[in-house]
């Protein structure tokens, strides 16, 4: 179903490649990430690009499960993958949580954070993807790969 998503490929028609709903359980993340990788492989997306997208999706789903759903498996996370006619790909991850302000995150590369066991997810997403938007109330992330 064609759709419109702001950013990356503004106002162009998008083709839906995948639409998954998963329980908010960390063990459910891998299957969704792997199915996206397989879908992209069938589209001949290069391996490096697939790995970068897969890791970004992994991080977005993990954030949705842990922070958006509080690890409550009765809640669900939605993950959609769409492609634009110019080959750009967008992945949208939505959770039912209250959302958060991504601007307030600390820099994981600061010396005092290097040995921290958390706080790198959103930073990685921003480094790996070409365009990242937090939508709605901060509980939906759109990640573009050109």
């Amino acid at each position, binding site marked *: 179903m064609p759709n419109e998503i702001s950013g990356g490929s503004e106002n162009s028609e998008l083709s839906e490649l995948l639409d998954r709903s998963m329980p908010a359980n960390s063990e459910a993340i891998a299957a969704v990430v792997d199915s996206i990788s397989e879908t992209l492989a069938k589209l001949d997306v290069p391996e490096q690009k697939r790995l970068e997208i897969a890791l970004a999706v992994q991080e977005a789903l993990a954030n949705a499960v842990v922070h958006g759903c509080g690890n409550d498996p009765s809640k669900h996370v939605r993950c959609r993958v769409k492609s634009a006619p110019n080959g750009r790909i967008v992945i949208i991850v939505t959770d039912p949580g209250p959302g958060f302000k991504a601007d307030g995150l600390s820099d994981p590369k600061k010396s005092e954070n290097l040995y921290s*066991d958390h706080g790198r997810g959103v930073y990685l997403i921003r480094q790996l993807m070409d365009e990242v938007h937090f939508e709605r109330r901060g509980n939906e992330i759109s990640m573009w790969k050109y």
Partner: protein
Amino acid sequence: MDINVRKRSQVQVVQLRGALRMGPAVDSLRQTLEEAMGNGDTRIVMNLSEVPMIDSSGIGLLVRFLALIKQRGGNIKLAQPSKFAVQTLRLVGVLNLFEIFDNDDSAVESFA
């Protein structure tokens, strides 16, 4: 994720196979490292040649245990990390926290 541990010259060589990411993979490796530390094993070589991806949970686990083990006079050294694993560790600024080797042998010998 498959985790194979063998001991060579008082060094634990941990061979990982599969993505190191939140869920069973990170939980299993955490258990492996806790057991090693519980047994007093603080010389660890982590072979990452068959780890195509490490997520932030996996990175957090590695740096956390690196700090704990260094406090006890040991170290976690990486052997043959995949290209994308290296890229990811570099992206978040932790690559230089680890000593990296081309193979298990040289990593094990570096503890001598």
